[in-house]
């Protein structure tokens, strides 16, 4: 269109209408309540897991180059850890001696142990512990073992002092190492932090999928509804395609954000209260390490940026896709390729949640259609260099800038097509020679 209409105020007027139309609808209210309920249930998963976990046994491989110390750890730490448990249930901890430190670590990889504890006595008499954690160990049990090492140090001091009185007690050292999990060559994450981040990662991958695909489809469905009701004829002469597309994306995006907040607030409250609830349900010894500790402000900002930019990219394409069909039943078929791309990003993000950054996952975290899923997950559970983040955001923003132009041109041509579905040639023609 050769007339150059300014973006404002029409974009905001369109956005306002779209926003009010969505948030006033019964479907919005019902879906918000359902999603909020589901989110609260998801937030309580650690409590459900805790209830199940109480009946499981954590297996710890123990090694020390001093056989006596190894035997002390196996015998006394086991007694210490298993002292409070229901008589009808199996011991929550099972400690076994390993033949070497490597063997102890390998038993984690092989699934024979959930963690490995290596204890050595320094020349000063101080005990130095290395605690290798696997993915299967719960954060609270990990913490209890950490406390247990202090108990072992006291026992060890008591027995040594009997043989060599007068030696002062020195606090043991403890190094916690994630035997599997996030590692990009830098320092591994603390396992408790890692566990918290994984819960967050799962929650946010699901949320971004909902935002990109579900809210994106709202945009497409809105365009189709305007074509079906023929009101498009009135609005396309009153506002430019660019104003309409961006206004629709903004308005529906704002409605999505409203629902998002309405879902997130109760689930965050639930996460914040889960520790108290667990204590109330299972007793003071069974507290849950709060998942929210992993939600640092820079991470929140990065999430927000990926939510907004990812939605903008997907919604613009959904708007263009919606303009090319005339009946709601054709929309699913037209939008399927984009939904498949989003699903691809979702699965890669799920893979990335294991903490690995295999070559393809690293590549996918730069690809604009996947970076909102994959890079966000890498940020959550792995370590990302600042340059990688800049590249990912830069490519995403550049792609959005190009997509605005293309989507607007497709939309301008597509909304005037009734009773026919535009072929690829028509779409290319519309992009090359805009109306």
């Amino acid at each position: 269109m050769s007339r150059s209409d300014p973006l404002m105020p029409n974009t905001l007027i369109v956005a306002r209408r779209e926003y009010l139309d969505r948030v006033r609808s019964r479907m919005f209210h019902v879906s918000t309540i359902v999603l909020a309920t589901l989110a609260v249930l998801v937030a309580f998963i650690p409590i459900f897991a805790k209830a199940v976990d109480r009946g499981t046994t954590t297996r710890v491989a123990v090694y020390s180059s001093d056989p006596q110390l190894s035997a002390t750890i196996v015998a006394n730490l086991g007694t210490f850890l298993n002292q409070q448990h229901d008589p009808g249930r199996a011991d929550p901890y099972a400690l076994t001696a390993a033949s070497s430190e490597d063997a102890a670590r390998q038993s984690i990889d092989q699934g024979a142990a959930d963690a490995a504890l290596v204890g050595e006595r320094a020349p000063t008499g101080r005990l130095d512990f290395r605690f290798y954690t696997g993915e299967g160990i719960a954060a609270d049990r990990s913490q209890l073992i950490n406390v247990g090492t202090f108990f072992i140090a006291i026992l060890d001091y008591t027995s040594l002092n009997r043989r060599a009185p007068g030696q002062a007690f020195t606090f043991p050292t403890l190094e916690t190492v994630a035997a599997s999990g996030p590692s990009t060559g830098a320092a591994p994450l603390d396992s408790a932090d890692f566990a918290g981040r994984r819960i967050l990662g799962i929650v946010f991958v699901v949320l971004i999928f909902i935002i990109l695909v579900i809210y994106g489809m709202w945009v497409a469905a809105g365009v189709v509804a305007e074509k079906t009701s023929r009101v498009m004829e009135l609005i396309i002469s009153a506002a430019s395609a660019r104003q309409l597309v961006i206004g629709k994306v903004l308005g529906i995006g704002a409605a999505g954000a409203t629902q998002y907040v309405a879902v997130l607030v109760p689930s965050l409250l639930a996460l914040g209260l889960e520790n108290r609830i667990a204590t109330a349900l299972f007793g003071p010894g069974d507290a849950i390490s709060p998942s929210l500790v992993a939600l640092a402000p820079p991470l929140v900002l990065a999430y927000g940026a990926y939510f907004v930019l990812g939605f903008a990219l997907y919604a613009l394409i959904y708007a263009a896709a919606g303009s090319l069909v005339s009946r709601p039943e054709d929309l699913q078929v037209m939008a399927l390729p984009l939904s498949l791309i989003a699903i691809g990003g979702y699965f890669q993000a799920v893979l990335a949640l294991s903490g690995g950054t295999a070559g393809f996952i690293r590549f996918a975290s730069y690809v604009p259609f996947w970076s909102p899923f994959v890079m966000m997950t890498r940020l959550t559970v792995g370590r990302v260099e600042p340059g990688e983040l800049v590249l990912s955001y830069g490519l995403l923003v550049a792609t959005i800038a190009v997509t605005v132009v293309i989507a607007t041109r497709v939309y301008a041509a597509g909304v005037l097509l009734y009773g026919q579905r535009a072929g690829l040639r028509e779409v290319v023609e519309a992009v090359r020679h805009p109306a």
Partner: protein
Amino acid sequence: MGSTCILRCVSLVLDGLSKRFGQVPALDGLSFEAPRGQIFGFLGANGAGKTTTMRIILGVLRADSGTIRWGGTLHDSLPRRVWGYLPEERGLYPRMTILEQLVYFAGLYGVPRDQAAREARAWLARFRVPEFADRRADELSKGNQQKVQFLAAVLHDPEVLLMDEPFTGLDPVNVALLREAFLELRDRGKTIIFSTHQMDAVEAMCESVAITDRGRVVVGGPIREVKRAAGRRMVRISIDGDHRLEWLSEVPGTRLIRPGIDRTEVELDAGVDPEAILAAAIARGAHIRHFEIADPSLEQVFIDHVGRPADEELTLATVPAEDSAA
């Protein structure tokens, strides 16, 4: 030269518009002038390019070539609020109230919300439906939705109104209301361009017309001149109990164009005296209720120019006997 400029500077001037959709030509050098402050009839058969022309004027489509000027200014340089558009494909937001959508559409044209609401209520009252303001569009009949769409097209007080088949689907009462609104807007200095197949509406309301066929204007100008330029004379006659006038074949240089219970239209060749028909009727003892010598109807001019013989398309085709028996 000066008078031409003055005329063009106050008119909507379309000059040599061409537009193709793929291999299909929609407009082929279409040109016409619609004087400011008049109601202008834009006529053509289905597919003649009327809607495409309106969309190009609005800037929704771009012409492959040609220019459009309003008041001497290229249409690309004009703000959207110059135009008001009632599309042929009608629609409203089904779940929004009428007042909300009227305010919304006016807002897109830059009208403040409170002013738009005030004017919308005033127009609804003029159309004798003030209670529609708070009703949802999907609660209204098609005809009433059409009235609301008309209001959406005029609420921002445009200089030019483009109305694509505005009377289609309306009952006679609403047609009369809409016609009255057109005339009132014309009296307020608005220029109204409307397409329709209802020739009587054009004859009753328009000062000028353009008739298009296959993307070109085949004839245009003030209606009287367009009719006179046809170079034919017509007789409209009404005889009790005889609307087929089969005896007319005995009167040389006459052709029955359109038989009708109320009026039958007869076309005369150049030089034929209309009174020959009157004399022939009297000679047969017919009881003549109406006899009128007239210019050809706009419908006849339309049929002449879009190249479809009246006797081929305005009467039913003869069905072969065997098909009929079957």
